[in-house]
């Protein structure tokens, strides 16, 4: 979004003087005003930037991860690899890792990994590794970082020896996008049903409102669990993915429809709506061309605040093995490995994907908060 694109030039190329700051304020569109206020909301703006970065990493995850998320390594349930910068002689080096040796305690069968100071493996950038097809477009085998001679596991490995770092980053693709796709679906449902309810009013409004109240009063998680349990096992990961987003939006459109209805009730009494109707605009046209843009900013705020609950819902369903299914990975499926206390006590690094869920949800909440303040014209 441009902030200063309003150059007061005329078509003939004769430039008039620049707008002063005050004048710019008066000619700015609603979106420009919102953007300006949002920029000033430091927490919200920073969260927005971080989220954009997060999505960038999630989309281009192939390149950033050292291993494919299904690759198995011989280090089973290994804790995160330590990265050193000072070697055995006490001198500073570029970051490197030591080779490790798995030692099994003969009494308890507990595995520990001991570092071997003889084997020094520097961490390389743009190293050659497993080939992958970037966005299904071209083959590449360069990874952002990696080591030769041994393996590096920033977040440790799971019980099958798969790299948790690579899995977490790959899972971001599904976990971060499912909130968006689900929100878009609820958005469509909410805007249509809420729009009809608010615009036509009367009995239709009454019925829809009671129905919305009903939808809100149903305990969501049991319903979600039942619906997603009905997704056939034979479906492909992609089909399951969309089925889950549909399941999630079945419940969450209701809140949005309520917001839409309230706003339309408020706006439809305005003179400009009457003017549009007198000019011969049809119901749909008045609704979507004249009324919806009037509260679009509120909708966007509401949507931003709806994404986190979707992310949490997906994580929860997948954690219960009712959501995304292997071989596809989401943060929830990764958390399946951390089902009970004893696992967490022995392999605490398996909780790392959950930390990502918390961070993502908090960033969305801060972003939504910032947008809400920015969209409020009275602040």
């Amino acid at each position, binding site marked *: 979004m441009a902030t200063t694109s309003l150059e007061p030039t005329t078509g003939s190329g004769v430039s008039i003087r620049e707008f002063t700051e005050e004048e710019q304020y008066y000619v700015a569109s609603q979106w420009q005003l919102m953007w300006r206020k949002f920029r000033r909301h430091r927490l919200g703006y920073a969260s927005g930037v971080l989220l954009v970065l997060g999505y960038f990493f999630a989309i281009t995850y192939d390149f950033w991860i050292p291993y494919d998320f299904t690759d198995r390594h011989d280090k089973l349930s290994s804790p995160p690899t330590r990265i050193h910068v000072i070697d055995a002689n006490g001198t500073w080096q570029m970051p490197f890792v030591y080779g490790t040796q798995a030692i099994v305690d003969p009494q308890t069968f507990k595995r520990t990994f001991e570092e071997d100071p003889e084997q020094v493996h520097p961490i390389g950038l743009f190293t050659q590794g497993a080939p992958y097809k970037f966005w299904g477009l071209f083959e590449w085998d360069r990874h952002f970082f990696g080591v030769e001679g041994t393996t590096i596991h920033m977040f440790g490995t799971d019980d099958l020896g798969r790299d948790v770092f690579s899995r977490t980053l790959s899972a971001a693709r599904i976990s971060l996008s499912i909130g968006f796709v689900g929100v878009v679906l609820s958005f469509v449902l909410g805007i249509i049903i809420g729009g009809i309810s608010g615009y036509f009013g009367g009995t239709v409004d009454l019925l829809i409102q009671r129905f919305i109240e009903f939808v809100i009063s149903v305990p969501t998680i049991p319903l979600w669990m039942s619906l997603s349990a009905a997704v056939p096992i034979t479906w492909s990961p992609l089909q399951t993915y969309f089925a889950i987003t549909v399941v999630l939006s079945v419940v969450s459109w209701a809140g949005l429809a309520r917001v839409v209805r309230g706003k339309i009730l408020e706006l439809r009494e305005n003179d400009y709506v009457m003017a549009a109707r007198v000019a011969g605009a049809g119901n749909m046209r008045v609704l979507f061309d004249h009324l919806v843009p009037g509260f679009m900013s509120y909708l966007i705020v509401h949507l931003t605040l709806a994404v*986190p609950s979707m992310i949490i819902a997906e994580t929860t369903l997948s954690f219960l093995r009712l959501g995304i299914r292997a071989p596809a990975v989401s943060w929830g499926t990764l958390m399946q490995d951390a089902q009970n206390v004893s696992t967490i006590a022995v392999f605490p690094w398996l909780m790392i994907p959950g930390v990502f869920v918390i961070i993502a949800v908090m960033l969305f909440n801060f972003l939504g908060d910032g947008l809400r303040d920015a969209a409020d014209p009275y602040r």
Partner: protein
Amino acid sequence: MRAYLVRRFLFMVVGWWLLSVVVFIVIQLPPGDFLTNYIAGQEQAGTFLEREEIEALKLYYGLDRTPIEQYLFWAGRFVIGDLGRSFGSWRAAEQPVTKILAEVLPFTIILSTLALIFTYVVAIPIGIYSATHQYRPGDYFFTAVGFIGLAVPNFMLALLLMFMLFRYFGITAGGLFAPEYALAPWSVDKVLDMLKHLIVPVVVLGTAGTAGTMRVMRGVLLDELGKQYVITARARGVSERRLLFKYPVRLALNPIVSGTAYILPGIFGGNAIVAIVLSLPMTGPVLLTALRAQDMFLAGSIVMVEGALVIFGTFLSDILLALVDPRIRQERAVAA
């Protein structure tokens, strides 16, 4: 007042009916009909059903009739308290659904009620504090805690709390009773033991609603405190405490009471997750095993009963709202 209550009551009944339709659809969702699944399951377990038995089951569920008739069969039996039979996904025993529910439902209701009480006991004082100490360190602290509480998925919070109790206090928080009380008859000690085990689930379930309730309380109270009548009262020398509790707090409680309708589904839903993680004898684990085994009558009944309870809870909160808010009690109320 009476018209309001009658309308709310009718709404509750209609809600139950809508819910039953939804649940019936859920029961029918899995591919194949449940009788075929049931027979296949029984044969795998080594029991072959007699032809008469199959015919009897067909008749019982009305399987050769239209879906609408099947619905009426099912709903009719539900009303008289016959919830059908579980196919044996829970504790590997084929038994009436009512029997399983009688086992797990009381604990679920106790836990949900405690969690709701926890939510209010924690959220309302904090909301009042935050509003009267706006933008002070305390307000920021509680806001931050609230944000984190909103961001942590219930099951993770349960896992983390359990882990910390185990690590630092050596307490195993899973289950509802210590082993020595599990089979013992009810006694004061057993109740105390149960309450001890309920702390973690109550805290986990309560925090989810607490964050939101806290924000509402703070927001509404801030609005009220800025109003003319408060300023007038202060100018006349009314003490700050009286100023706060006489009207503003009472007004700010209204949205909290009506907000129960939104918190309750969350608590009952979150219940399922927490009970699974902490292995509590509640509806959650039963629902999960039933769903995995496609034991749909058991699963459907749980969703139905929990949903019906939540709708009933909403009705109760409507009554409560009428009691605390004279505008609803006396005027011809505008619903919701």
